[in-house]
């Protein structure tokens, strides 16, 4: 990787840590340990199901919230604090700044997810007392969640390259919600006819497909995830992130920073 991008990414990560972003892990740990202890007391035979469902859902939602709220401020904060001018006055290109910020934020989320994944497996061990073969699919679900973060980070960065932090948060969150129903949206588009159908299909393809990245329920029930889906989802997440980041670069290149 270009060393300038590396520096910006590392500094973004350091700044996030300094901003106490990783404190969310405490809330996550409390939630999961509370659930693990309680579920054994109040329910029958769904301990594993609850821990996997709750754990992975929390990993996903905590991460998405962090991605949105840090992502939207990545550019605007640098402009407000005027640190952007210092960075860009050095031999750093604007595109390197955007790409570096993206890697920094995704790096933060990957580290965060690693800790949370550890928490999920510890809670699982606590309630079931042993690991089973099917628990390996939980790792796949966690990998898909990381792919989800890649797309959310790229979208937050894209919107923050031309919009206010509040609007960027609204746009990104709205796309996350719509994207979570992307497969149904394409289903609706397929049975709509005429110009409306074409328009609906175009929108359905343009919104990020988060539904295929959500296999939480599937792995909670111990169902396997096809290898092809892992491959296609990986390619899709990389392509979609590349698309959003290129859009952000194009806008940021033209933005008047005076």
């Amino acid at each position, binding site marked *: 990787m270009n060393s300038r991008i590396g520096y910006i990414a590392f500094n973004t990560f350091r700044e996030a840590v300094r901003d106490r972003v990783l404190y969310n892990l405490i809330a996550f740990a409390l939630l999961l340990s509370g659930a693990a202890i309680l579920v054994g007391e109040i329910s029958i035979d769904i301990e594993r199901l609850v821990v996997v469902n709750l754990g992975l859902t929390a990993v996903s939602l905590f991460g998405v919230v962090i991605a949105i709220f840090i992502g939207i401020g990545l550019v605007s904060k640098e402009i407000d604090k005027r640190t952007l001018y210092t960075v860009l006055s050095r031999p750093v290109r604007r595109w390197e700044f955007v790409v570096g910020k993206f890697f920094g934020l995704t790096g933060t989320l990957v580290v965060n997810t690693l800790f949370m994944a550890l928490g999920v497996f510890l809670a699982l061990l606590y309630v079931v007392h042993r690991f089973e073969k099917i628990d390996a699919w939980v790792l796949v679900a966690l990998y898909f969640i990381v792919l989800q973060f890649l797309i959310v980070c790229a979208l937050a960065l894209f919107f923050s390259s031309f919009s206010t932090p509040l609007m960027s948060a609204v746009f990104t969150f709205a796309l996350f919600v719509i994207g979570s129903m992307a497969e149904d949206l394409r289903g609706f588009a*397929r049975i709509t006819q005429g110009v409306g159908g074409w328009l609906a299909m175009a929108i359905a393809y343009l919104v990020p497909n988060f539904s295929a990245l959500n296999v939480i329920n599937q792995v909670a029930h111990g*169902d396997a995830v096809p290898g*092809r889906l892992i491959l296609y*989802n990986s390619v899709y997440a990389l*392509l*979609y992130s*590349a698309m959003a980041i*290129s859009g952000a670069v194009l806008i940021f290149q033209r933005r008047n920073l005076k």
Partner: protein
Amino acid sequence: MTATRRVNLVAIAVLLISMAGGVVTLDAIDHTRRQSLAQEALYVRSSKALRRMSLGYTGLLADIYWTRAVQYFGEQHHANSRDFRLLAPLLEVTTELDPRLLPAYQFGANFLAPQPPSGAGLPGAALALMKYGIEHNPNQWQLYYNMGFLYYTEFKDYAKAADAFAQGARLPVTNPFMPILAAQMAQHAGEFDTARMLWSTTYQSTQDALVRQNAIEHLLALRVDEDVTQLEQVVEEYREQTGRLPASMGDLERAGLIHGTPADPKGRPYRLMPEGRIEVQDSQSIFFITKGLPPGVAPPQPVRIAEPDLK
């Protein structure tokens, strides 16, 4: 070329390539997940639980489940599968979430009742669905019509069909054909007329292009079935008069039993076979016909997928 211009060009290229690649990958993902989507939709089968999870947006959730039911049926039908085991639960959840979603009853019963590969071969489930629909929408004449249709076509229970049409006929807003259908069912007379009226009512009571096309094809098939029946009666009459079978349609015309050369709805003249049977010229050109087919040939079925208009 300046550095900024070069960066812009690269960014545009990456944007376009990733956009195109994203579309291709999405299609591949959809293909991979086709089967699992309906199964996932049924991880939670309790409509009460689903109602709570939907945070009150039950209408939207019902629409989503209905779309999944349509897609599931379409995909199984397209794959010539005989396994429709998820269809009834999907329709149950859909209608329990939104008991007023009429297309789910009307089309759902049409998906469930016919034998595979045209449908799931579950007329009992279709009837249960219609009864649930009527229970929650007692003023919708279409549901009584569909139930009567179901009794008539799948169960051959003319008394219950007559009762369903009669109940629908008594509603404040109904179709003028309903009392006539009820009467015809009660008499159980004139099968062709009854079937013609049923399909005409289906044609008139929907705006959906595919359903209308289906009704037209059934009406054409009815005309062929009726023509073949009448022509075979004429052949029998000729044999009784002359003591031999006619050699051609011309013999029947010369005997004054028919006028002109009878033709099917596509304009192809019917063929008189040596043993006195009447056959259509192209047995695969008119769907749903039950008469006029060469021995051992199954009635042709359209291969398209019925996708109802949800508007």
